[in-house]
């Protein structure tokens, strides 16, 4: 399943990813300028970001904390001594003429991330390192015919580059890996994971080989900003490489770009054209030396991470793995669910959250954070079902009223008289009437007991849906002499 079928046999894909995650921080890695997204071009640029003469970088300690927190969240080693290096190259959106990065001594060393495959099995992806670096600005080439513009708002924004080992074998692995990293970062609050705004981007290294053979030559697909495109680009690139090799060609190591419109990768620059970055330790910055106690204090702040939460949701609420996975995809989902599930039927709660609520949010373009129905209100509604004040069906009506009016479910049920009828006298009366009016059906149901449902439906209709369906069903069965 994980292999590509070529004309000459099977091929295995080998994938390694470099994820660039923008650190959630008010200010940049080496300056006090704001990092807010969407501001006027060049309105968030300090003297340091613009590389004015004599300006010096100063490490933003908060960004360092965020990187350490992330490293711990990736089960990785924290290097107590790390060094900033300069990566030298010329580009108009790189004012210093070098990017401050970490080359030989990154802040975070080896770690491991677990991904869950669709068949429920697990696959480990090794993390080689995580290092801090500055983002570049943005070049805009299409505003004027003969000139380019540069926006330095992003210049100097703190990024974490998370480098995986070449441990993935299918596009699915890569997609699950990116998704998992994104989830972990969001849990930690170290990156908002917003791929559309460029807060999370990935470079994908793709090579193919005969199963078990030596690693093939890799191509790097740069700057992917959607999980779906990552999957498509890998499928395309692997097939392209297999075709070349099977046609007797060889793969040239190069950097490629994914063309979304054409659905293909194309060459950006070859290895020969690659920059010689002339890395060397940045003499403006001293090595960063951390105390173990400082790292330990950050460790104590780590919130419950997705894997742990997944296990706990299954244990504590009796959820299945599928439901638990949906809830942990976003820490906000799980938090919302746990508020809803307080004191109510958990299965009912998860169905309402992942079904009705998510459906509504999608349809109306809300997120869990902006949901017009708050978790407490939905919890109240599910509570009304759990204690049989209303039926699940009535609850759906109440849900719509809640959306319209913003009123509390209890108030809606009260005002609209939607309380479930549990008065057996009233139900019995309705049952008797339905039986009397349908002698032919009574005959039929005696042959086919499954038809009892039809009687339940009639009674529910007659009571405006307010009768307790269980009570109705019990009564009908008793009256018609049907076995349970």
């Amino acid at each position, binding site marked *: 399943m994980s292999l590509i079928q070529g004309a000459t046999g099977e091929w295995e894909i080998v994938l390694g990813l470099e994820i660039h995650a923008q650190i959630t921080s008010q200010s940049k890695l080496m300056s006090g300028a704001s990092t807010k997204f969407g501001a006027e071009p060049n309105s968030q640029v300090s*003297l340091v970001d*613009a590389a004015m*003469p004599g300006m010096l970088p100063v490490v933003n300690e908060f960004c360092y904390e965020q990187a350490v927190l992330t490293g711990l969240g990736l089960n990785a080693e924290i290097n107590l001594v790390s060094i900033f290096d300069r990566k030298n190259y010329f580009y108009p959106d790189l004012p210093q003429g070098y990017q401050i990065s970490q080359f030989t001594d990154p802040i975070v060393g080896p770690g491991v991330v677990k991904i869950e495959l669709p068949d429920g099995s697990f696959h480990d992806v090794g993390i080689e390192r995580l290092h801090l670096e500055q983002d570049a600005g943005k070049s805009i080439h299409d505003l004027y015919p003969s000139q380019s513009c540069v926006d330095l708002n992003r210049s100097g924004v703190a990024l974490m580059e998370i480098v995986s080992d070449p441990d993935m074998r299918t596009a699915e692995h890569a997609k699950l890996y990116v998704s998992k990293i994104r989830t972990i970062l969001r849990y930690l609050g170290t990156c908002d994971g917003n791929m559309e705004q460029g807060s999370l981007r990935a470079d994908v290294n793709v090579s193919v080989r005969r199963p078990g053979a030596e690693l093939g030559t890799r191509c790097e697909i740069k700057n992917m900003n959607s999980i779906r495109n990552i999957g498509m680009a890998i499928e395309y690139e692997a097939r392209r490489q297999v075709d070349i090799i099977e046609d007797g060609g060889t793969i040239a190591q190069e950097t490629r770009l994914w063309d979304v419109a054409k659905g293909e990768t194309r060459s950006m620059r070859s290895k020969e054209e690659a920059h010689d970055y002339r890395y*060397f330790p940045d003499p403006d910055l001293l090595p960063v030396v951390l105390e173990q106690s400082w790292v330990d204090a950050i460790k104590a702040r780590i919130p419950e991470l997705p894997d742990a939460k997944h296990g706990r949701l299954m244990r504590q609420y009796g959820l299945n793995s599928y439901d638990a996975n949906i809830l942990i995809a976003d820490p906000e989902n799980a938090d919302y669910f746990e508020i809803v599930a307080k004191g109510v039927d958990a299965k009912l709660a998860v169905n309402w959250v992942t079904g009705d609520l998510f459906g509504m949010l999608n349809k109306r373009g809300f997120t869990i954070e902006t949901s017009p129905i708050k978790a407490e209100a939905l919890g109240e509604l599910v509570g009304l079902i759990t204690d049989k004040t209303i039926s699940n069906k009535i609850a759906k009506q109440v849900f719509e009223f809640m959306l319209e009016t913003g009123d509390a479910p209890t108030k809606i049920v009260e005002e609209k008289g939607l309380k479930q009828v549990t008065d057996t006298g009233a139900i019995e009366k309705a049952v008797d009437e339905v039986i009397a009016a349908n002698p032919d059906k009574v005959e039929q149901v005696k042959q086919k007991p499954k038809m009892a449902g039809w009687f339940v439906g009639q009674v529910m209709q007659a009571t405006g849906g307010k009768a307790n369906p269980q009570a109705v069903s019990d009564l009908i069965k008793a009256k018609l002499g049907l076995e349970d």
Partner: protein
Amino acid sequence: MSDLTNLTLSDAREKLRNKDITAVELAEAHIDAMQQTAGLNAFIFNTEEKAIEMAKASDVKLAKGEGGILEGIPVGVKDLFCTKDVRTTASSKILGDFTPTYESTVTANMWADGAVLLGKLNCDEFAMGSSNETSFFGPVVNPWQRQGDDTQLVPGGSSGGSAAAVAARACIAATATDTGGSIRQPAAFTGTVGMKPTYGRCSRWGTVAFASSLDQAGPITRTVRDAAIMLESMASYDVKDSTSVNVAVPAYEKTLTGDIKGLKIGIPKEFKVDGMPEEIQALWQQGIEWLKAAGAEIHDVSLPHTKYALPAYYIVAPAEASSNLARYDGVRYGLRVAGDNIDEQYANSRAEGFGEEVQRRILIGTYVLSAGYYDAYYKKAQRVRTLIKRDFDQAYEKVDLMLTPTTPTAAFGIGENIGDPLTMYLNDIFTVSVNMAGLPGISIPAGISANGLPLGLQLIGKPFDEETLFRAADVMEQAADFTALPQLMAK
């Protein structure tokens, strides 16, 4: 030369405090002197109006008995320091008419202490040079001349403008910077005092970078006492410079007690280089005698890796420079020479904007950092640097200070060495190891060469022990009693 321009900083300070003179009078006298010595090409931008304005503000403070340690003192600023609203070019064409919106920490400290800005001082382009001949604004002329010879001489470099202006009495004191000897060598060539403090003592924020791990600001003055006063103002811990060190700035002037009894002075034997002129050797011996007479103990010490300091310096400094100067790309400020595409624009702007010596060092620096050469050059040079530092650490277990000549020769003629970079680089042979080890060093005028030019002796101190350095330099200054004046002044 008027009486006012001949005042030392400490004398001028007393007269200002006693209201014998006003800051405006003092500023005006120096503005006159700047005009009279314009032929030296020491100042490249004059800020006369600003000077009068600042002097007036100082007079208001002085009248109330207030003011900082430099209140009303007219100074020149090397054009490497960014000065708010005053053009700053590092003596390079590439910065064009760049005018900073910010003030370097060092100069901001001085303005806060009441100093008065006369103008910006010429220097070698981006501080790369030992003769002030690489400046886009042309060479600076040394106010000194050889006896009976009117050949124009270099003032040394890179802080040649600072040294020439102080020697010519066009300013009382000047800021300078020293990456491999750029304060001490010009001080030696002009009969002035040049002080390079410990790396990290003065903030580098707002000073145009040459080689970040070596650059350090310091003063050029006419007396050791003046240098102590200047450094006290210039030095500070600065959170904006991660390499600045959080050590309190002492009142340096108070350390000039005149007492160096029992002080241990090391004489590094490796500085006795082959071919050292007789008169330099004799001057060094004279320095030893002066210190001995004042009660100091003299000890031979060894700094075995000294001979590698210069070659290692010429790898480390250009490497850092090649990266530091990448920002001058014609995109955001300074000179832009258009091209058909961005690569051409870079090439055109940098080819036209940088002079020959700067281009040479960028090329050397780019080369030594390149893939395949990094280990052989840059990494090895850094290892050498560690060994040089260790040599000093070990020597300082036995001695408090070291004494050496500042330069192997006296000032040379303009154009004499410019075609021969290697000879030019040898000017720094006695000064670079001090930068490589990050130590403080001071050059004081100690004698006159056979042909009538000033010669300097260098004292080298322990890290952040500028106090002992000043104390010994003060004693040696008194012993040397250097009173000769540049021919230009004597006329």
